[in-house]
């Protein structure tokens, strides 16, 4: 049955559908990432790799 459905649907539909889902997801993700007031959160996240150093220096937030 799966075979019949796939043969009937046409193979070209699959990549187009995946492509649309991908672009839509990326679009929503971009909008979310740049929502107002989010910069300080990402600034803190960006410094996670430097935390040991920051703790020694009393570090500050930076990042985009």
């Amino acid at each position, binding site marked *: 049955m799966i075979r019949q459905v796939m043969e009937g649907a046409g193979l070209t539909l699959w990549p187009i559908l995946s492509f649309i889902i991908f672009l839509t997801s990326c679009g929503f993700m971009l909008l979310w990432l740049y929502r107002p007031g989010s910069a300080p959160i990402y600034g803190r*996240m960006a410094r996670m790799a430097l935390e*040991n150093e920051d703790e020694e220096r009393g570090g500050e937030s*930076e990042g985009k």
Partner: protein
Amino acid sequence: MIKVKYDDKIVRMFLLACLGWGVIGMSAGLWLALELSNWKFNLDPHINFGRLRPFHTNAVVFAFGGNAIFCGVYYSTQRLLKARMFNDVISRIHFWAWQLLILVGGVGFLFGITQGKEYAELEWSADVILGIVWVLFAVNFFGTVARRRVKHLYVALWFYIGTILTIAVLHIVNGLAIPVSLTKSYPIYAGVQDALVQWWYGHNAVGFFLTTPFLGMMYYFVPKAADRPVYSYRLSVMHFWALVFLYIWAGPHHLHYTALPDWAQNLGMVFSVMLLAPSWGGMLNGLLTLRGAWHKLRTDPILKFFAASITFYGMSTFEGPLMSIKSVNALSHYTNWTIGHVHSGAIGWVGLITFGMIYWLVPRLWRTPLHSWSLANVHFWTAFTGIMFYVVSMWIAGVTEGLMWKEFTPEGLLAYPNFLEIVTKINPLYWIRAVGGMLYLGGLLIMVYNVARTIQAAPAFRDEEVDVPDAPAMSHAPAKYWHAVLEGNPLALCILTTLVIAIGGIVEMVPTFLIESNVPTITAVKPYTPLELEGRDIYVREGCYNCHSQMVRPFRDEVARYGDYSKPGEFVYDHPFQWGSRRTGPDLHRVGGKYNNLWHLRHLDDPRLTSPGSIMPSYRFLLDRKLDLSLTPTKIKVMRQLGVPYPEEMVKDCQAMARAQAKTISDDLAKDGVTGMEDKDVIALIAYLQRLGTDIKWREAAAQGPAVSVVTPEPTNTVVTAEPSKVASSDSKGAGQ
């Protein structure tokens, strides 16, 4: 606050193993370069090109690269999660089992124990061990995640998670095989399907073994070395999800113009081009992390290594999508351009970032200053110069041979009908590549000396001890939002990542497996005889696929040079497929019937007897080595289990059948005065080579003239008809094999 001791001993062990395997793997690479420059460097049988090449690729990818990954992951994970690794015993088992696996697998390759699938050459028994070791690594990693003291997982850890999950999926799906013995198996897939699965694996092994873990390391070590936070955390979120989604789709670009269905090829091409976006997003994120620290590049070798590495990442991720465009691929595929591309990624991106990480780690792990920063500088410039010699020579060689293969005279004949003419033309570039390899290896040896002297001067070892909060995991995000939830919930992150990587593989593979029109059946195509099957196993054992393709693409030049183009239905009994990815020598799919048995015997004895100037190693040992038919009945049984339509009685008759066919060939050789070959390996290999591409009667069709169907169609399947114009020009003259 409580005190936590990080397990740095395991990091040091992986670091030293990385250096040791780096020297071994790159020395093997240099030797291969010399073998291509002058065939006399081949030391048969164990150090012949076909056996040494999988040793080299596995030693640098899984040994050098693998140990670098584990070194970086074990160091950064503990610090990012503020927790010691989950279990010290698992860490040690992981380390030693990995080294043992590489040692056993590598020695096995030199003895011809291989599955014959590029970058997945390990036989089933070693594959099982690899799977167990990978699970141990996963348990150790996720166990550490479970007891972390930081709520949120930093971006580097997502890339590690993506690596662990995807490699497991790739390894299991591509490794499915039915054993014949402890050291021999046949993959469950055949022909087109095997090719699709293999290159889905092969491409994503590059993506998820040589890219994502190193990107994770980039996101951790570059900010550390530059003392700057990552340029854009938002970009890293986009980078991660877009990369893991898109990478999985791109595998079919390794199979352009082959017998793979066209829709799958186009899909691979489109997604490969799209892959440029996240790749360059990641590259820019890495490079811009150095903003405000550019001046340090003048004096800090670590940052030089990192900056050059990320630049090579950008270059190779531009070149990859470019080469995946079908019209470019028509020229670049099977040429040295691919070798140059692979090495700009491998020794440029992976090698340099590993060296940078090691120079950053050694003074910290051994708590003593590096012996010589000047030597580190020398290493950088030596390695950089070596890479340039390597990749530029291979780019030129690739474009040169690609153009020469395709050139026609005004009269419509191949301008270079003798393949050897092209091989000898690019030989000087092989020497230049070898010089590049020497420089790169020389740089590594300088590093080994530098590290050894540093360790000599180091005080007694102790693990780093830090104060961490003895409290529930702390949060870095004041507000709850969906991605923060994901970053704080590893299980959800794992499930979503698995879903995202699964989409591409499923969409490409399921239709190829289920829809019959993708691989039209050709009734004229029959299973190999027992002797041909044994010959095929010798072909796989000697690694012939490392230099010869078995896939005539539907191009005018290829049809003119080799014969009728390859059809999907011709490979339905090929477990594994042997299409190859490089033409150091000519394609062999239509070699059957092109030369007589004596020609093949003399060619294998000494290729220069039949093909003056050939760089192929001698396979004289095949003329002495006794043909072993003891496993033939088991092989036929396994093939029957895989769906190859051998009659049941063949299981007991196969040895007698093989001997009878061997006698026919040896009788033919005896007419030319060659005796005593009927029980030798070479007879089986000749039987296999003479069978290649002969199931469809393309030579007869060419002789009859236009519009001839060369296959008998199944009632329900597609008819494959040879195009008259192509068949008409498919005379085998002058292929120079």
